[in-house]
């Protein structure tokens, strides 16, 4: 059980990442693939946050006096995650837009059938 409590966050984060990657690799519907990418992003964000966690730590905000710097979690991953989320959103928005356009052109979102550009 020690293992689980030690690594449960990592396991969770990477489970999400690999589930997402599996979707990207194996699924044929474009929307699902995009969802997969989004899951990967979420997983990564989770992973980054986990990196900065300190057992029993508080948020790095000195909102009230008496908060000790030693107890605070690492602020850097949080800043990174903020950026990563925005990037994820941007990619997601663009991907969905492209999916809309693609559907207009092909009438399908099945990636196995959208194979005009090849060789």
């Amino acid at each position: 059980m020690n293992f689980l409590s030690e690594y449960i966050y990592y396991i969770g984060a990477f489970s999400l990442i690999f589930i997402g990657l599996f979707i990207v690799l194996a699924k044929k519907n474009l929307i699902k693939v995009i969802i997969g990418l989004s899951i990967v992003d979420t997983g990564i964000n989770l992973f980054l946050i986990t990196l900065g966690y300190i057992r029993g730590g508080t948020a790095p905000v000195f909102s009230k006096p008496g908060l000790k710097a030693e107890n605070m979690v690492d602020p850097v991953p949080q800043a990174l995650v903020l950026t990563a989320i925005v990037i994820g959103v941007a990619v997601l928005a663009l991907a969905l837009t492209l999916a809309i356009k693609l559907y207009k052109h092909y009438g399908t979102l099945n990636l196995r059938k959208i194979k005009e550009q090849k060789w």
Partner: protein
Amino acid sequence: MNLSIILAIAFGGALLTYFSGKISKKARDVLAVLISLVIAVILAFFYNTSSREIFYTGFLDFPLILRIDTFSWFFAFTIAVIGSFSIIFSLSYIRKKGNTDYYYTMMLLVIASMIGIILSGDLVSFYIFWEIMSWSTFLLISYNRGPAIAAGIKYIIMSVTGSVAMLVGIISLYSHYGTVIYTELSGLLYNASSGYTIFIFVLFFIALGIKNAIWPLHVWLPPAHSEAPSPFSAVLSGTLIKIGTYGIILLIYVIVKINVFLNLGEGIVSARYIIAVTGAITILIPTFIALLQDDAKRLLAWSTIAQAGYIILGIAYGTSESVASGMFHFFNHAIFKALLFMVVGAVEYRTNGVRDLNSLGGLIKKMPVTFVGGLIGICGLIGVPLTNGFVSKWLIYKTLIINNSPFLAFAALLGTWGTILYSYKLLHNMFLGQLPEKYEKLERAPFSMQLPIVILSLAIILFGILPGLPLKVINSIESGFGLEPLTINIWGITSDTGTINMLNLFVAVFLIGIMIWLIFKGSKKSAGIGQYDNYAAGTTVPKNKYHYSVDFYGPLHRMISPYLRDFIDDFYMSLARSIKNLGNGIRRIYTGDVGYYAIYIMLFLALLIFIQIKWKLW
């Protein structure tokens, strides 16, 4: 006078010609001729001088060097002269074809780069000019469109193949010895392992052999020579492939040096014999293939390969006489093959592009000067005594026999008899026999075509009677290589093992000819009759069947043609096809299915991780 000025004139002139063509056609023509002549004239002044200069230091760490000595002078001068004749010949030839600015520019560029190759004093500048020559040639070969396209692509692919091999050789030399300058490299290979020397040799020979069309590397030449515009064929055949010859001489006698070369391998498997035997094969097979050709220029193209074989044989054989013969034959071949291509070109010009030997005939009446050019050309090609081809061939036979290589000599001699057959066919089918009716109104070749033809014809006779002129130059080249020079006089060569004196021969032939002519004249005068006024053994032959040219050597053709498929060409073509198929197969990995693409990414990553976990490679 600086050597770099020559190059500046040559390259600058090429560009200038292009732009002057935009202003005035006349000016461009004059300029093109002028530039080529000026180069030749300037080069002439360099006779018997030797100088060396660094002309450019901007290329990486290599100072690019130009140098001239008798060796390079000989080649450069020949090339410049043949080049300027070709340009003069082009004046009317190219007028009909359009795109003339381009033509002259490329032509001058080819000539300039060839001179650059010859004058360069280090391997890097050699290579640079070499490649400029390759691509400018490529751009000119396909000028005629149609089948010339395939010819061009074949040429450039082979050329690039060769030059990359040579590039490896050059850089390898540099990495071993830290220099690419001829004079510094010279003899350094003396201490190298013979394996390394052979490695270098093979690399260079791929490039040089392809240019020089040595037998298994010759496949680009027949289509390229036959499809290029005729004046350019003259340049190609007369000078461009000789760049390969120059390179081989340079490699063997300047860089590797004769003593290393002769000791490379032993007996039959020595480099010397292998190259010489390749030369012999290059004489024989193309000669026989030339016999089967029905296209005038293709016939000449195969003949070019065969003659290049003589040159290679002579150079590689390594005796002082054989080397002299190789270089002399280079000189002669440049003259007579340029002449022959011009003759064919003139006919092609007047008949609107006909070069099929089966549909010409009887043109002697219409184009007498051209015919005489052709006659003297084939005499030189065959090596009829008193033409220049004779002395060089005589030298090679002699040295081969005296040095106990009768099989090589046999190949060379048999090649000559094959030459008689195909060159007579060339002459007969174009100029002799019955004139087809459609050519009744043919005019003579224009003056700008006749002029180079006449000059080159005279040159063939001149150097046939006075072989000492070029041999003197060759002699001084040979002493530069560390070979024992020949004992020569202006009329010929004297030595213990065999002497030739063209004066005797000339006087004898001349006197006897006069004698017979007198007898001929003295007897009853003959009545001139017309062309169709023929004896037909009492039958009437239909007019259009009066000319016997199709399948001229039919019986022989039927005998040998099954054995003479150009299987080397087939081999290269199948190689190309299989690369194409390979490419078509490989690009199917890009299936168009993005799922696969993602899998590739993961595969790559997994592979790296797997290798590291499993083997701890990194």
